[in-house]
């Protein structure tokens, strides 16, 4: 199987669009015959990334590369960056505004969930410039 590359743009303002990229990636993985648990894990991690892009990042881009051995995802935004990554990785820590919390987000679970559902997670962030998160999920 040749590597499959997927590319999505995430709106920075529209919550109703969040979930489109993760939904499409999930559908692709399902159609390619990847295990249901792997498909679910990748989809959840990407969805959390999409939501973060809408809440904090002012939108961004998502690139996925699918091979039989590994699903690689790169989530990149040009938002404000994360001043303290270790704090942001703590379950329950959130800087989401009230209007976002009313929608059911802002539980402080976004980055911890991404880590939980992936095998590798690397965060590159610079305050004022943006954040890139690189993820890998290996096919076992």
């Amino acid at each position, binding site marked *: 199987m040749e590597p499959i590359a997927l590319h999505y743009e995430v709106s920075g303002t529209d919550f109703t669009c969040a979930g489109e990229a993760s939904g499409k990636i999930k559908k692709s993985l399902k159609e390619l015959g990847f295990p249901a648990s792997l498909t679910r894990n990748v989809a959840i991690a990407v969805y959390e990334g999409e939501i973060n892009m809408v809440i904090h990042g002012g939108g961004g881009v998502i690139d996925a590369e699918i091979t039989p051995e590994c699903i690689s995802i790169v989530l990149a935004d040009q938002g404000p960056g994360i001043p303290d990554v270790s704090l942001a990785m703590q379950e329950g820590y959130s800087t989401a505004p009230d209007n976002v919390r009313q929608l059911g987000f802002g539980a402080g*679970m976004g980055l911890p969930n991404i880590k939980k559902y992936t095998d590798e997670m690397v965060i590159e962030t610079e305050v004022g410039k943006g954040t890139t998160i690189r993820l890998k999920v290996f096919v076992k």
Partner: protein
Amino acid sequence: MTVDKLQENLGLTYLCCEDIAPTKEIDGCYCGDLLSWVMSRAEPGNIWLTVMGNINSIGVAVLADISCIILTENAALDEDAKKRAEENDVVILTTHKNAYQLASEISQII
């Protein structure tokens, strides 16, 4: 048990996708309204009891492989959420009961 049997047993009201309820197999139940929390903790096949009837709830249900959403205490389902649910085959039901009352009834029958 499938979602249509659950609906019959508990007298729930369909809001969306009644026709595919017989194809949705139930495995357990989860209660919660914080979407990331639910997505991280709910198991595939769970019934999901919540008051969050917005479009993002549908995304969570799809990604987490939820068997159906039950909106408790007559919580509202947004129009765009209903449309998204129809597009993604997410069965949604409603009840006047609260999550505790409904969950205790569910535990008796599944």
